[in-house]
């Protein structure tokens, strides 16, 4: 019983679309940040599926680098969120619409 590779790709498209939706509709800045992580994960699934399809190791190494960058990004992003919360006392993005802290 084989599962077509395209089903994995469709699954990752569904996850990516849900991530885009959460990015647009969520109002909490932490939830928006989590939806970015969801989109990164969806793209990672595509990389792994294609890596399995073409028997190429480099696809999995791309995922490895994406994980490293995501870890760095989430550390800096959460620090920025903490700084914004200290300055504004809110997590609602509708009230954080000035670039000045």
């Amino acid at each position, binding site marked *: *019983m084989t*599962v*077509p*590779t*395209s*089903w*994995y*790709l*469709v*699954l990752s*498209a*569904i*996850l*990516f*679309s*849900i991530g885009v*939706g*959460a990015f*647009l*509709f969520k*109002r*909490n800045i*932490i*939830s928006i*940040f*989590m*939806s970015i*992580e*969801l989109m990164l994960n969806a793209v*990672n699934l595509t990389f*792994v599926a294609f*890596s*399995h*399809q073409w028997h190429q*190791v*480099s696809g*999995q*190494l791309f*995922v*490895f*680098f994406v*994980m490293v960058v*995501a*870890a*760095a990004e*989430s*550390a*800096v992003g*959460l*620090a*920025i*969120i*903490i*700084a914004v919360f200290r300055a*504004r*006392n809110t*997590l*609602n993005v*509708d009230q954080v*619409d000035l670039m000045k802290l």
Partner: protein
Amino acid sequence: MYFVLFFIFAGLCVAGALNLLLQRHPINSALSLIVVMTSLAVLYLLLGAEFLAAAQVIVYSGAIMVLFTFVIMLLNAGEEERTLGASQMAYLVGVPGIAALLGLLTYVFLSETTALGGSRLGDSIVTTSDLSRVLFRDLLLPFEVTSVLILIAILGAVALARKEPAPALVSVKPPIGAAMAQGAAAMHAAPVLAQKESQV
């Protein structure tokens, strides 16, 4: 068997992602994102990427999501309020846009089903030694650059999240006498506080 496993964990992924979208409280969203990431690790195992499955559990559901839940609890984030100030456009453009994106991607992927082939249990597994051979030979420079990136990220996170020294404590320091110091602290603190109030 492979079929059943794929459907169970793909269903868990989609259910977790939808739960992330629908929950109002950020901690619920974070926990459902952990479900998504862990079931993605199982899907990686099904695709023969054993190192990535372990790294997914350790890095994503272990480190990154713990950081998220830590920040949510630190900031005491409550339920989000649905303000519709500037975000009406997001609903108007977003829903058709997302539907179009999903439809287009699904159509393209499903029309290529026969050309792409499939995967089943007992396919080739990419071992860690295969991965490391490519990583440390061909991709050594990017690997070293990521270490610099992580160093910069650590410094940036520390610099951004650092608490600024409280103004009252600075002016208390000279040991002139308790009353004098308190008066000076009040005098120093008042304009600073007023300034902060006006900024907020």
